[in-house]
Each structure stands twice: as structure tokens, then as C-alpha cells.
């Protein structure tokens, strides 16, 4: 597609529920990133894929967070047993390559609210 597509746009989850957030990157983009953006803050890095390989998951806040990109295109970020502190906007970005100084294209994000 023309841009990075994320779904759903909004998700309300009860505390303890599992959620799955989807990212469709721009076709042909090798690199895919997930970021978490709390209200009024800048995004924070969660994890990075190059094709299907997850090369960096140092930003995942706990073992409740899991991401995959099995065929090197669509990616899913899964959060198990959601907690209120997980409430944030989850942004996906893709780029043609992971090398500087290529730019990143971000999706519009999924706003997760845990109640």
C-alpha cells in the first residue's frame, strides 16, 4: 500500500485481557519498528525487525509483550494480561533499509486503553 497501515485504530481492553495489534508496512520495506507513545510524550522504541528476523527487542517492557513478523511483511504486537500502564498509542514504522539516513514512515497508530 501507499503507507503504513495499523489496525485497529482504537482498542479498549479490560485489565487482564490479551490484545493483538497489527501493522502492514509499505510493500518492500525491509525494516519494521514498533514504538510506544504515552500521552504527551515522545515515542519510545520497543522492537525492530529486519525482514522476518527480530534483531532488537531491548525496548519491550516485560515478557507480556511479544512481537512477530513471520513472513517479513505484516507484523503483530501482542500484549498478554494487559495492565493499565500499557495504555498508550502503539506506533509502527517501516523503512526501506535499516541504514542511516533513510527516513521512516510511521503508521497512524493504535490507541490502546486498558480499563
Amino acid at each position, binding site marked *: 500500500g501507499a503507507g503504513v497501515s495499523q489496525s485497529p485504530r482504537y482498542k479498549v481492553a479490560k485489565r487482564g485481557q490479551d490484545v493483538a495489534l497489527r501493522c502492514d508496512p509499505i510493500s518492500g520495506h525491509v525494516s519494521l519498528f514498533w514504538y510506544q507513545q504515552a500521552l504527551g*510524550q*515522545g515515542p519510545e*522504541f520497543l522492537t525492530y525487525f529486519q525482514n522476518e528476523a527480530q*534483531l*532488537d527487542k531491548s525496548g519491550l517492557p516485560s515478557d507480556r509483550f511479544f512481537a512477530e513478523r513471520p513472513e517479513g511483511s505484516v507484523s503483530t504486537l501482542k500484549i498478554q494480561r494487559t495492565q493499565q500502564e500499557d495504555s498508550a498509542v502503539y506506533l509502527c514504522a517501516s523503512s526501506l533499509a535499516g541504514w542511516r*539516513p533513510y527516513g521512516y514512515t510511521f*503508521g*497512524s497508530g493504535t490507541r490502546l486503553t486498558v480499563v
Partner: protein
Amino acid sequence: TQLLEQSPQFLSIQEGENLTVYCNSSSVFSSLQWYRQEPGEGPVLLVTVVTGGEVKKLKRLTFQFGDARKDSSLHITAAQPGDTGLYLCAGIGNTGTASKLTFGTGTRLQVTL
């Protein structure tokens, strides 16, 4: 941990005024990007600066990368209501194979008529 501090946090000005947003860090970055984010949308890349001391202009926006590649500034001339948004600087580090971004704390700009 690399931290990027932006100042000011909030800025409310009238159309036609000039403004400067600062992005400072104690760490050196190989390059730095500026993004603008509007409510309900993802950040949109404005510019990438790579060389220390580099100055780039994008219409009424002027971006500068510090000589030591630790800081940057964004200057907007004759601001317009369409400039309203959250401005984010983001640094790309020197290490690792992944060009993950370290975002600044953000500057929220409101331009009124």
C-alpha cells in the same frame, strides 16, 4: 541511555511570529531527524541532518545540527496555524546495526490567528 531534551515543552504564539525549538543531549548522534505529529496521526518526517554544523531549510523552517552532533534546533519564520502540532527530534545512534530512533520529549506548538 541516550536522552534528548526539548525546550520549550509548550509554545503558544500568534500567526506571523518567529520561534525556535531546541533539542539537546549529552550523547553524540550520527544523525538527527525532526518530525511533526498531529493528533491521531503518526510522526511525519521533516528533515534528516547528518553532518555537524549542517543547516537545512525547508520553506519557512530552518534546521541546524550542532557542531558536536549533540544538539539541534528548529527555527520557524512567520508561523502559520498550519504549523500547529507536536514537534519531535529523534537521534540515531552510532552503535548497532538497527537505526532505531531515540525521540525527544517533544514541543507542542500552537499557532493562533
